[in-house]
């Protein structure tokens, strides 16, 4: 149409027949103005925002962007070694190959397949591997340790097929190496990855997620010396966490220091062997009258220096190999070792350190406490005679001596020698008969000697035991806890005092508490603080002497205000018990060339034996003593659970420790069965 228009048509005047031609109306001009204003406003907003972001807070965002890409990786420090008192290595490190998995690098497709292959190759449970990877979802830059101590052939396979395992890294790590297997397992503890709860309280101390930390024992108590300082390295990563550069260390790791213990490795071995040996003997060769001895299944030995509380051996049985905790822990191995909640009872709780946390009735080993307290309180004269009868009756209750063979007056040392129960029942009654204003001196003295509370052992893990008092009875037996008989049970009765005097009924002590008390007797009245730590060292190059960095300090032995003369009486009694004609462990120690003094204990404990439906009274075998008796260097306390008479199993077990300590053997053989 337009083509046909003459060229000049646009110069014609407007055609009056048609409407007014299109032109910009004031209305449209206004609208264009408004749109223009809006456009200006829009750009002003954009400019201002851009200005605010880039110019005003640019450095802050630059910081954020840099933090986005730089990841800090921790470099593991080699953990310090643990040495025995003469410098023998108890725990060291071996370099191990660790297979680690960086969850960030797992491909979205085929990740499950990869985990499956990895689990199969390395023989780890797939479920746990998947769970570990899932847990790292929010923190894909802390690798999951799939397995440590990976065999060489599998490492080679992984290296060859690296393309098929994205995110798998093969790294060198340090693994705890236990020179002597299970030796001193309870003392040493183990090392494991820091738990969430531990991390909460230790962030300030420099611990981070994924760190190794001592769990229990020496490893935990002295972690600050052993752990060293991890190094720090930076790594550039992309948004998926894939490393884009090699590690650049900004701080090299510093190896931890060595820790020397007071533990003596050979003595520790002797103690552990003695426990094993005499638990076994109790089970297999127990006398006919020993009820439950066949189920002797645990025990503990404490050996310490009475002069300063340094522990030379601390054995607990049953035990375990701490190596099950090395590297990535295999729950099946833990279960097999009886270290899980489910499997522990069947193995008689191997993780329990019976030497410090096993609570037993003490039996006659408590008699020296009673003796000291009675002399201090002036209740008895040690060389006055008190009747040792087959029975003792008080308040219409009859308490028998352990043997009916004595019926004579005895001095205190003789009563200790023969372990006469009725003598001490009478002493207990004397305590009971004291007027109220005299308080409860027997318990007070027991408390002075450290019973009823932890000893303050440096590696912890202790139990307090139980020192029964009038208040304790009142507190414990209430209408709620004991609806039938609380009104009677809450009262402290004569029987309580009488039985406490021989360490029976409610009293519970740990072997360490008892050893500490015998140290008081051995050192002439001072209460020591038991410890296993000795000093922190830096091991120099081969052949050079280690540098002592720090001598560990412990509270000095504390005097107990006990009369030295009273102590001497007890020491005479304890010597008689191992050498006198009627001594309860003369058979064991009588011929030993080094003079040993000590007390047996046969503590009755009511428990349900395996396979029995009812609770039975079973004897817990004790022996505590020291040697040489005139100048004691070593206190030994031995307990064998369900072991029967203290003299028949606990005393020989303790003797083995003295044999090792003094280097004299062969003076005691097991009496034959007909004996």
């Amino acid at each position, binding site marked *: 149409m337009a083509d046909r228009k003459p060229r000049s048509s646009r110069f014609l005047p407007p055609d009056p027949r048609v409407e007014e031609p299109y032109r910009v109306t004031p209305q449209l001009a206004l609208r*264009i103005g408004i749109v223009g204003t809006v456009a200006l406003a829009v750009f002003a907003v*954009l400019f201002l925002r851009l200005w605010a972001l880039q110019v005003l807070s*640019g450095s802050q965002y*630059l910081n954020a*962007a840099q933090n986005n890409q730089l990841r800090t990786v921790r470099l593991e420090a080699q953990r310090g070694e643990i040495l025995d008192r003469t410098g023998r290595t108890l725990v060291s490190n071996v370099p191990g190959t660790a297979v680690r998995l960086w969850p960030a690098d797992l491909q979205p497709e085929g990740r499950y397949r990869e985990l499956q292959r990895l689990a199969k190759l390395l023989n780890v449970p797939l479920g746990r591997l998947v769970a570990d990877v899932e847990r790292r979802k929010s923190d894909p830059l802390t690798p999951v340790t799939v397995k440590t101590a990976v065999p060489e052939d599998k490492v080679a396979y992984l290296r060859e097929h690296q393309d098929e395992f994205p995110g798998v890294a093969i790294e060198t790590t340090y693994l705890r190496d236990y020179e002597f297997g299970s030796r001193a397992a309870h003392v040493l503890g183990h090392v494991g990855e820091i738990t969430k709860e531990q991390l909460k309280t230790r962030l300030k101390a420099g611990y981070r997620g994924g760190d190794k930390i001592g769990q229990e024992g020496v490893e935990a108590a002295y972690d600050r010396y052993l752990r060293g300082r991890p190094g720090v390295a930076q790594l550039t990563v992309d948004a*998926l966490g894939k490393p884009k550069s090699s590690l650049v260390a900004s701080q090299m790791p510093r190896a931890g220091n060595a820790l020397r213990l007071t533990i003596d490795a050979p003595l520790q071995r002797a103690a552990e062997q003695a426990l094993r040996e005499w638990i076994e003997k109790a089970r297999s060769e127990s006398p006919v009258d020993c009820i439950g001895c066949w189920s002797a299944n645990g025990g503990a030995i404490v050996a310490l220096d009475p002069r300063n509380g340094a522990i030379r051996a601390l054995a607990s049985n049953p035990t375990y190999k701490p190596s099950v905790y090395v590297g990535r822990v295999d729950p099946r191995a833990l279960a097999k070792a009886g270290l899980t909640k489910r499997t522990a009872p069947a193995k008689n709780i191997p993780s329990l350190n019976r030497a410090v946390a096993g609570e037993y009735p003490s039996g006659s080993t408590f008699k020296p406490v009673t003796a000291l307290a009675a002399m201090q309180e002036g209740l008895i004269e040690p060389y006055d005679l008190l009747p040792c009868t087959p029975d003792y009756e008080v308040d219409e209750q009859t308490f028998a001596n352990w043997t009916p063979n004595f019926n004579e007056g005895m001095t205190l040392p003789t009563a200790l020698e023969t372990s006469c129960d009725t003598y001490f029942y009478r002493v207990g009654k004397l305590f009971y008969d004291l007027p109220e204003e005299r308080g409860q001196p027997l318990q007070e003295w027991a408390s002075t000697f450290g019973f009823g509370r932890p000893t303050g052992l440096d590696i912890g893990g202790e139990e307090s035991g139980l020192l029964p008092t009038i208040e304790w009875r009142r507190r414990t037996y209430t209408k709620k806890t004991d609806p039938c008989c609380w009104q009677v049970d809450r009262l402290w009765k004569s029987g309580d005092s009488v039985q406490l005097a021989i360490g029976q009924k409610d009293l519970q002590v740990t072997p360490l508490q008892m050893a500490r008390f015998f140290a008081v007797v051995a050192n002439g009245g001072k209460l020591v603080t038991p410890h296993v730590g000795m000093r922190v060292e830096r091991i120099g190059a081969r052949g050079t002497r280690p540098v002592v960095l720090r001598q560990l300090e412990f509270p000095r032995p504390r005097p107990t205000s006990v009369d030295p003369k009273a102590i001497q009486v007890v020491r005479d009694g304890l010597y008689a018990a191992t050498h006198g004609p009627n001594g309860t462990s003369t058979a064991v120690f009588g011929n030993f060339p080094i003079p040993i003094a000590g007390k047996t204990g046969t503590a009755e404990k009511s428990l349900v034996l395996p396979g029995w439906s009812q609770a039975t009274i079973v004897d817990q075998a004790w022996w505590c003593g020291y040697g040489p008796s005139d100048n004691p260097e070593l206190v030994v306390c031995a307990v064998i659970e369900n072991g029967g008479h203290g003299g028949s199993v606990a005393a020989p077990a303790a003797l083995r420790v003295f044999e090792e300590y003094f280097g004299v053997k062969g003076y005691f053989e097991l009496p034959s069965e007909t004996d």
Partner: protein
Amino acid sequence: MIDYVDSRSSTVRALSPEGSEVLAFLRRLDWLLLLAVGALLGLGLWVIAGVTRNDVSGEPDYFLTRQAIFAAFGAVGLVLTTFVDPDHYRRHARVVYGLMTGLLLLVLVVGAVERGSRRWIDLGFYRFQPSEFAKLLLVLFLGGFLADRYKRVSDPRTVAAAVGLALVPALLVFMQPDFGTALVYGAALVGTLVVAGTRWVHLSALAAGIVIAAILALWALPAIGVEVLKPYQAKRLTGFTNPDSDPGGATYNVNQSITAIGSGGVSGRGVSGATQTSLDFLPVHGTDFVFASFAEQRGFVGAAILLGLYLLVVWRGLRIVAIARDAFSAIVAGGIVIALLFQIFVNVGMTMGIAPVTGIPLPFVSVGGSSLIANLLAMGVLQAVCARGRGAPRERPGAGSKRR
């Protein structure tokens, strides 16, 4: 009226072989606008060169090469559309509408699904995105529709009809789903209505309707169990009101984008130093978040120049609305400019956390052939309107607008 408009058509002069006529036509083009678009195109290619350097390993120029080819096609298209009398579009408004609807229906049928939406028709060498071209077609159609009813534009029925007709492509795009582009269609509709002279009261009603629809879609209907938007869409849109609500999820992109922009500072971190982009912390940095990447690499200076160029284009566009020869040309120019302004604001605003995340590409810069070509075609239409406008020098000096 149609006759009258026809009588003023002057295509023949522009296309005549006579040298002086061509020269006169060329002189009537908006060269400043052309310059601004050319600068944007060049800047855009520079941006793509830096931003997508690490995206295809081994081929640092993969996206740049493709984008340059698209830019060349788009430039040819711009030149061609400049020489087409816009009135043709008006006369064939029905064809325009049919073409637009057909393309949008076609993509729903044969389109390739990627990242959960069906937006592209895969042509092998090139993925054709009809919704980008439909944007221009919608403006052209609405221009024709409203120009033909220019005298009755105050009639609510005219407005309602225009809204209804625009709703069809918007819904088709919404079904892909592509919420952002549907919003751009809404902006184009508002733009054409504003220039066509729709009464403010109607415009207000339309605006209120859009707001109510948005509220319904985002909060009210989901509350009673009807899901209008995909959950990810709603999350992105509502996340903008509270950017720290879920740093790992819906608002991750925006937080990384703000960090990228801020870290650029005044002078930028350069291509290799822009870690937010090169280490992939900022996702879709070639398309939706290209502004953030550019701002990280070139800093406030570069980003300000880019925004300045956009401002220049918008200003020249509005000037063309004012000098347009007839109602149709004015409405089309208005629709194009306002839709462009809306896109710029929503895209750039999104990267800076002051507009919702909707996935609208940045005009002339974002990687993507369809968007680039369609935008250049729209610039061609603007030039065509300008060349035939009343504001040319010599003919009417000083009429209605400033002289260059």
